[in-house]
């Protein structure tokens, strides 16, 4: 049986420091990415996600030096994104040790980037990340690019369906509303994405503050993987403890 996954998310600035955001804003320094990755490796995290969220440096240059050092000490899947603008960027990251690349803003501008990466490296190598927030005016979720700053004129459901059609191997859904709040995942948002993604696996991010939040999201939405930042950054929590708790609720994780 395929296991549920828990994925620590590490947000990077061009300075090479890790930060944690609150609703995509108010950056707080949370340390050195190589040191923290080594710890997550020891704590048997299932994968690691690195996102360059530096608003000035939207290029993969921020990710490359880090990737080189992390892939020497972490023998688990590494997914990176933030600033990928072409299939060529994706190729450079994969050659430097990335297992998967995460594309977001470019998918709105040049949707073919997804199929291009999928054609060369396989569907599994491309994750389409989507930043969404609830919009009271339209009573629906809206999606946005450029680190949440530009609202895109396409519905969440259509954007997910298009990503799947283009060959996305996984969908990574971020809740802007819940980011850094530690108040629980946005179950309704995740359910909508899981339904639209069909057979494509979904990773949900944004809102984890307790292991109960993770249990609720896994049990109530059928999501394949949960990503979290604050939960592991602030407080005495780690993937081993999370799994020990979740295993008591009928959820299966890898046996090591």
């Amino acid at each position, binding site marked *: 049986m*395929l296991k549920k996954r828990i994925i620590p998310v590490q947000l990077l600035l061009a300075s090479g420091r890790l930060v944690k955001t609150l609703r995509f804003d108010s950056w707080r320094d949370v340390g050195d990415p190589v040191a923290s990755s080594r710890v997550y490796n020891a704590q048997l995290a*299932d994968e690691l996600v690195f996102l360059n969220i530096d608003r000035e440096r939207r290029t993969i240059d921020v990710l490359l030096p880090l990737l080189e050092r992390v892939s020497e000490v972490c*023998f688990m*899947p590494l997914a990176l994104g933030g600033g990928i603008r072409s299939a060529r960027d994706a190729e450079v990251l994969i050659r430097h040790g990335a297992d998967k690349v995460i594309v977001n803003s470019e998918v709105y501008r040049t949707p073919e980037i997804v199929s291009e990466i999928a054609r*060369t*490296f396989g569907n599994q190598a491309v994750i389409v990340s989507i930043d969404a927030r609830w919009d009271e005016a339209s009573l629906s979720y809206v999606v946005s690019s450029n680190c949440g700053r530009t609202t895109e004129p396409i519905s969440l459901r259509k954007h997910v369906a298009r990503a799947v059609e283009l060959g996305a191997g996984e969908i990574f859904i971020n809740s802007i509303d819940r980011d850094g709040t530690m108040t629980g995942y946005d179950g309704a948002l995740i359910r909508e994405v899981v339904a639209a993604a069909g057979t*494509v*696996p979904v990773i949900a991010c944004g809102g984890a503050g307790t292991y109960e939040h993770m249990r609720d999201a896994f049990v109530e939405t059928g999501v394949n993987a949960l990503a979290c930042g604050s939960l592991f950054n602030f407080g005495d929590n780690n993937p081993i403890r999370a799994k020990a708790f979740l295993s008591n609720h009928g959820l299966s994780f*890898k046996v090591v």
Partner: protein
Amino acid sequence: MTDTLIGVIDMDMGNLRSVLNAVHSLGFDHKVVRAEADIDGLSHLILPGVGNYRTAMQHLEAQKLIEPIRAFARTKRPVLGICLGMQLLSFTGDEGGTGAGVSLIEGHVERFDPMRVPTIPHVGWNEVRLTRKHPVLTKVKSGVDFYFVHSYHFRVDDPKDALGLVEYGGGEHSDYVAIVARDNVLGFQFHPEKSQNNGLKLLENFCDWDGAC
């Protein structure tokens, strides 16, 4: 037996670095293989993963490596395919248009049937059931998890070539080949270099193996 020197084929695509890092961290000498001349003096050969079957075969063809890989295998030195690398050991594959593989283990590589599995690709940690003993499986237990990412699977002609199975999708006929093995040729559908302790143990066992069963 000559000194251990692990060759890792660079197909000009895919994640060569992770495999090299893992082999390096285990303390083995290694070398990147880009042409036939690089194969001289190797004790072990690894074909790494990530990519498209047809594109990978085209690369191997352009590098004139297909026949040298087969010749290396005939010398009974250990050969390992990882993920796509394992699939390339087959005789034929469908991805990117049906065509021939490196042809070391009889079988065909085909896409998962979307009616039989919950998601494609099969991505994440899944248990591997070992079907028999093998020197490379020393100190690795049946039923532990390894990291998979693939949309295609290797259907072996001879079930004896399936050294490990992975269940995906439930119900009847939901076992897929996770490890292929025949004589000195071995393949992992999962990524040992991404599967933490158990994966590294398998890689270490492979690098210590003399190719005999």
